[in-house]
């Protein structure tokens, strides 16, 4: 009630509302007129309107109230007033009576369904179908079938739309109407055709052949309604998706129909067709071109909706086919100043994806003007797009970094600032040249940063990166300012950062100690504690000595104990004479769902802890492996490959393998999951047959003691191989174990088990496993600096290929190297392509590769491969990989 009372206050005199001061109780009283013997139909309509108003404003009726209103409303069926009847229909739908009340109105509604008045028929159908349940439906079926082919389109639509809703709960009944629905598809009324087509597809959706037939027959052009035509396009795309085969002419089936729709007179249909084409699986440039042409025309439309739809579609295309969208760049640029900010943002992010290196500066200038007047959510989108642009064109880091620092200084909310900071951090990490100016921008930002979280994250990052720069001292001022000016959280974090500089940079030590000593009198205990700890461990008692590796490791080393394990151990610790021993905490990662690990690897959380990002998985693996004594002598882990599944999905035991490559060894880590609740597996090992991998010799196996249900665990097998040689081979695997039955009710396993084994898929060590994907920011500089001493050039014929880009990707995958400067994308229709790759070969040799491809009319691909590296044998090895 309060909201109505409030309305009285803020409505002015002249803002008169007929519902001023309306109250539920009073309206419910008024509803008694429905029971009068002499019905005043106008009055009754008014009361219903008031009831609807209350419901629409969010007022709720109690069960009793609703029932009472419903019963009295049913009395109004006596009235012959059409207007009143329509209001009655409406309120019945709004009240949604329960199934035990519905019977009161069914006979009246069924009478209306057969009435001569079209309005009655159409509405009675809609109401009845809304409130009815399955049992009543069989009685209605005959009338509904008639209504579907009723000559009045309103009645036909009402029946068809009701059919669409009823299909959810009663598909069997609705399926029986198929003949009538088919007839309605041929209706002359546009909307009837639309509704009939939707229902017909729903009836046939599980029958591929029938859908295909439906599409084929209608594609010939009997559909008049634009909405129905849109549906037809959707169904056609579905058929195309499911029928992968091309016909003899090499044309995609139905492509001609989609392309024909691009010339339809309704813009709605054109848009739908263009979008359908852009979303085709493996769409080619030739197929895309006509769709992009019509979308380009939409870009200059006077209607914002059309511009939005076009730019949104092109934006999506630009993610996969940037080269095909470049033809729209000029139109896109004019959209940067579009009134509609959504359109402008989409235009900018599209341009950032399609633009070339030379256009970056001009684009940035335009964006700067634009940034000031859009909302934060749009700005974040732009910032993310700029980050990817910068990674694509590392040479432009100066312009882009400046842009980021400029917008960092302007007003903005937390999410926006965080997006900018994240971007700067990623750029610093990936583009070495950008490090110093990036760090200084961050320093300036924390001088005036209102977000504690961001300040502490930046301080931590400074502590990691700052000491490695040529002149670490210039950051100290910014950091110490935090100790003076900020809140306790930031101060504590600044103390840690200072200490890190002290530990890493010996010449700075005396000055750092002075600063840290001042912190001993801080008002906050955490700050004081940290300062004391660092002073004591770093030797701040006067003697300036080189800090011990152990101390460094203790203070700043990565914390290699899983926090979960530490937490459990601490909880279990009973306060006794014996102090808590951290080495007693188990290091084995107990439960590590693979999905989580994957997502952590994919999404580099820019600011999270010590070198996060793509290396984090390697870090975890490295820790995991070094914690196993058998493998601790293998030395530095070179590479851990992405997991390869060795079982099909949904088998009894799910196993995947991670290959860890060392200089002289290879370790297979089998991640096993037992998916049978009634089983406990013990002594799980993988028996590897390396007869097809001659250069490998098995040296160690680490069995898994127990594998309970749904708890992933690992078993390992290690092989020795000749040092430095990229030995390849195929390994066949058998999982062996002892099965013990588990009583599901108690969870206890039986004493005795049975030996069993389980065949796994083979796994291979390939040449790409010895290559680490490491990008370079400036390929040409890197190429020049490696020099031609160990350059090896040769030409290869790759035979007939589907397309140039397919050939390029095949070679990239074969070598397992990182494509640089976006050269993995092959321009549409081009006959030649140059691709630049970089990587680190086992033995830590830097390798750069320049690939030149050419394709002739018969699709024969030839390739020139130029390799530069620091070692002749490495260059040769790369050629061997390709030659084989």
């Amino acid at each position, binding site marked *: 009630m309060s909201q109505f009372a409030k*309305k009285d206050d803020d409505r002015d005199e002249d*803002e008169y509302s*007929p*519902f001023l001061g309306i109250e539920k109780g009073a309206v419910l009283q008024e509803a008694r007129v429905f029971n009068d013997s002499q019905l005043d*139909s*106008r009055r009754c*309509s*008014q009361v219903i*309107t*008031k009831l*609807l108003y209350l419901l*629409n404003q*969010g007022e709720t009726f109690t069960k009793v109230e609703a029932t009472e209103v419903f019963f009295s409303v049913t009395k109004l069926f006596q009235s012959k*007033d*059409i*207007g*009143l009847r*329509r*209001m009655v229909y*409406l309120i019945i739908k709004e009240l949604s009576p329960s199934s035990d009340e519905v019977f009161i109105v069914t006979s009246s509604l069924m009478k209306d369904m057969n009435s001569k008045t079209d*309005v009655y028929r159409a509405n009675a159908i*809609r109401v009845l179908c*809304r409130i009815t349940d399955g049992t009543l439906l069989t009685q209605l079926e005959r009338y509904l079938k008639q209504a579907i082919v009723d000559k009045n389109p*309103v009645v036909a*639509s*009402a029946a068809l*739309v009701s059919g*669409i*809703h009823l299909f959810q709960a009663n598909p069997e009944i609705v399926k029986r109407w198929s003949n009538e629905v088919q007839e309605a598809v041929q209706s002359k009324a546009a*909307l009837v055709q*639309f*509704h009939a087509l939707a229902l017909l*597809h729903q009836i046939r959706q599980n029958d591929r052949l029938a859908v295909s037939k439906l599409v084929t027959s209608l594609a010939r052009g009997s559909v008049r309604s*634009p*909405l129905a035509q*849109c*549906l037809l396009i*959707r*169904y056609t*795309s*579905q058929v195309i*998706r499911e029928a992968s085969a091309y016909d003899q002419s090499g044309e995609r089936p139905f492509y001609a129909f989609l392309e024909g729709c691009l010339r339809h007179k309704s*813009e*709605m249909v054109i*848009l*739908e067709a263009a*979008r*359908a084409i852009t*979303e085709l699986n493996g769409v080619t440039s030739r197929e895309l071109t006509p769709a992009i042409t019509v979308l380009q025309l939409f870009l200059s439309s*006077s*209607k*914002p*909706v*059309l511009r*939005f*739809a076009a730019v*949104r579609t092109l934006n999506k295309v630009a993610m996969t086919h940037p080269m095909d969208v470049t033809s729209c760049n000029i139109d896109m640029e004019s959209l940067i100043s579009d*009134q*509609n900010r*959504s359109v402008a943002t989409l235009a900018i992010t599209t341009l950032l994806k399609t633009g070339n290196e030379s256009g970056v500066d001009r684009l940035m200038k335009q964006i700067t003007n634009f940034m000031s007047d859009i909302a934060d959510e749009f700005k974040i989108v732009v910032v993310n797009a700029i980050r990817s642009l910068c990674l694509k064109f590392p040479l432009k880091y100066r312009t882009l970094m400046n842009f980021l620092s400029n917008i960092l200084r302007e007003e903005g909310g937390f999410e926006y600032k965080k997006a900018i900071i994240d971007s700067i951090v990623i750029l610093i990490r990936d583009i070495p040249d950008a490090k110093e100016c990036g760090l200084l921008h961050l320093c300036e930002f924390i001088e005036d940063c209102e977000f504690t979280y961001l300040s502490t994250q930046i301080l931590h990052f400074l502590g990691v990166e700052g000491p490695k720069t040529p002149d670490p001292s210039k950051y100290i001022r910014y950091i110490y300012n935090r100790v003076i000016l900020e809140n306790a959280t930031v101060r504590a974090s600044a103390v840690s950062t200072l200490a890190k500089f002290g530990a890493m940079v010996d010449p700075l030590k005396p000055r750092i100690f002075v600063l840290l000593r001042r912190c001993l009198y801080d008002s906050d205990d955490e700050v004081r504690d940290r300062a004391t700890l660092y002073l004591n461990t770093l030797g701040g008692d006067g003697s300036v000595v080189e800090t011990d590796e152990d101390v460094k490791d203790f203070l700043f080393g990565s914390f290699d104990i899983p926090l979960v394990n530490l937490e459990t151990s601490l909880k279990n610790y009973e306060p006794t004479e014996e102090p808590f021993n951290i080495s007693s905490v188990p290091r084995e990662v107990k439960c590590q769902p693979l999905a989580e690990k994957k997502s952590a690897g994919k999404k580099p959380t820019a600011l999270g802890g010590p070198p996060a990002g793509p290396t984090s998985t390697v870090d975890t693996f490295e820790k995991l492996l070094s914690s196993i004594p058998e493998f601790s002598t293998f030395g530095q882990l070179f590479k851990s490959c992405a997991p390869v599944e060795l079982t099909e999905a949904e088998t009894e035991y799910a196993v995947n393998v991670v290959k860890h490559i060392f200089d002289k060894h290879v370790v297979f880590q089998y991640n096993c999951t037992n998916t049978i609740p009634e089983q406990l597996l013990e002594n799980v090992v993988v028996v590897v047959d390396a007869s097809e991998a001659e250069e490998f010799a098995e040296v160690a196996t680490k069995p898994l003691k127990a594998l309970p249900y749904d708890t992933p665990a690992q078993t390992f097998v290690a092989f020795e191989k000749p040092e430095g040689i990229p030995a390849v081979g195929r390994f066949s695997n058998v999982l062996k174990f002892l099965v013990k039955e588990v009583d599901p009710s108690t969870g206890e396993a039986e004493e005795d088990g049975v030996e069993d084994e389980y065949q796994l898929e083979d796994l291979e060590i390939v040449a790409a496993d010895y290559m680490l994907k490491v990008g370079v920011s400036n390929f040409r500089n890197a190429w020049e600096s490696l020099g031609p001493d160990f350059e090896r050039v040769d030409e290869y014929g790759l035979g007939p290929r589907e397309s140039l880009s397919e050939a390029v990707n095949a070679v990239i995958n074969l070598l397992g190297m990182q494509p640089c400067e976006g050269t993995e994308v092959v321009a549409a229709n081009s006959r030649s392509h140059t691709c630049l790759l970089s990587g680190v070969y086992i033995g830590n040799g830097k390798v750069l590769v320049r690939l030149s491809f050419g394709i002739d009319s018969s699709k024969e691909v030839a390739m020139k491969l130029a390799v530069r590296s620091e070692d002749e044998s490495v260059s040769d090895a790369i050629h061997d990989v390709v030659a084989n």
Partner: protein
Amino acid sequence: MATSARRDACPAIKNLLLLDSEGRRVAVKYYTDEWPTNAAKLAFERSIFAKTLKTNARTEAEIVMFENNVVLYKFIQDLHLFVTGGDNENELALASVLQGFSEAVTLLLRGNVDQREALENLDMMFLCLDEIVDAGMILETDGSLIAGKVATHSIDDGAPLSEQYLVRPL
């Protein structure tokens, strides 16, 4: 997969809103459970109203992405009309619904399109929403047909369209 959801489905309308110049409800209708409570609905209305308030959507319908939905809107005098559809919806299909909505409202209010007139003919506004969309399915997009269906009843009643029930003291 998002695309398949989009491809196989009918264009669906999530809500139709008719708000006044201060963002208060005149008549609204929701067709999904995306906003389960009245409070959630009000919050949606408030934020979309605030977000679009400063734009000029008088001559041409405007469009905005909002909370993973596409919202089309148009202002006529002091009335604000909104149509919401899913992220992947064909914008022009939604535009045709908005077009029908605004034409029908204009016809029903006989050109006197303002919030007071709309409130005084609220029964017609409710009927109008009811004729445009049925439980999310587009029922009719032609403004004059929608208005025709709403208005028939008053005519059959013998009362002219201009006659307003609610002007009489309640």
